[in-house]
């Protein structure tokens, strides 16, 4: 009886880790695309208008930080899954 319960628990544990890892991976994917696009556009902007490089760079870092924030929400959800399982 105990062994089956333990087995079940171990199965759930594995699943929880797997799903959390998947969630973290997807969040990293989304944030990667987002930050990549920000960086790309910022470089284009700087290439067109090198005198605005300072302003563009500050805004780029700020936007990247906000995109990162969205990824952190996903990370927190992943953490909750790990803690729960």
């Amino acid at each position, binding site marked *: 009886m105990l062994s089956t319960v333990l087995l079940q*628990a171990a199965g759930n544990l594995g699943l929880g880790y797997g799903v*959390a890892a998947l969630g973290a991976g997807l969040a990293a994917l989304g944030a990667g695309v987002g930050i990549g696009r920000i960086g790309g556009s910022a470089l284009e902007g700087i290439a067109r208008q090198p005198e605005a490089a300072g302003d563009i760079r*500050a805004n780029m*870092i700020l936007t990247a*930080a906000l995109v990162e*924030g969205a990824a*952190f929400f996903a*990370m927190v959800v992943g953490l909750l899954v*790990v*803690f729960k399982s």
Partner: protein
Amino acid sequence: MQINKILKLKISTLIFALLFVINSTFAQDHANSENSGKPKKFDAGETITEHIIDAHEWHIVTLGNKVVALPLPIIIYNPNSGLDFFMSSKFDEEAVYNNYKLIDGKIKVVAEDGKTIDEAKSSSIIDFSITKNVLAIFVSVAIMLFIFISVANTYKKAPGATPKGLQSFIEPIIIFVRDDVAKASIGKKYERFMPYLLTVFFFIWINNLLGLIPILPGGANVTGNIAVTLTLAVLTFIIILFSGNKHYWRHILAMPGVPAWVLFLLTPIEILGVFLRPFVLMIRLFANISAGHIIALSFFSLIFIFGEMSTGLGFGVSIVSVAFTVFMMFLELLVAFLQAYVFTLLSAIYFGAAVEDGHHEHEEEHAGQVAHH
């Protein structure tokens, strides 16, 4: 209940989960070797956790079986017997001192039979100990006091003179925070926020840099500790709450120029946003700094994982590992500055939104146009 307790996971297991793949491949017989007399197998998850979490002693080096560590004072308030004060070296070699025992970094009360742990009493004690992180904060505070008092004195002695020494290093950074962070995002009323912004910027930056130093005065993961980042985020939150003007609160509670039925949706989101902003500030700093430490330690762990397979392989991998770690350290130097900058910049932008003057006439005009169409 028993199983529930087993399944209750701590932060340490989370880090273990991050390294799950490495561990499951190389540490399968870990459980077996623990009971037999053989030396314990290298456990990457455990090693990394030990390095990034807070501790009651400051571990320096382990030579063979001998642990060299700086003992730290332990201060416990026990509701039954009052305050207890002793050094953490009393806990060496899993000793029981004064009915206290250190288990996995937590101080527990031992029951009267001297062996089992009294969970009820353990949860009633309050631990005020000077832990590794607390001492590291003291160190960084001492460094900051030295830097800023000496720089301020040079200004007092020779006002208007050309900056020299430490002054010429600090002045551009203070001007950067003032012009590019505070003035740019707060506007006219930036001056009253400058003390907080500068303090938080230099506190985060210096602690990030100290965290990168592997030996004693550094090496503690202060800004990668969620309690520290929580405190910083709560400070920002309190300042936003108290400096928010009428205009700011009106925009949160009832956005002008928005139809009433949309407000049912918008106002809860805006109120949630007020709490989410400091929450993300907390998570961002914590995750970025902890991730940096975990990556550097993972590269070092690779040496020992391969070294257990064969010594030659360990030496071979160490070259690659050290090269990668050096590269990561350069990246972390950038991240240390960037995270201090981002925390300060976002705080400044939130303060700026809170103290911004309203453009009421313009908005009402705009609202009228919306109603017209």
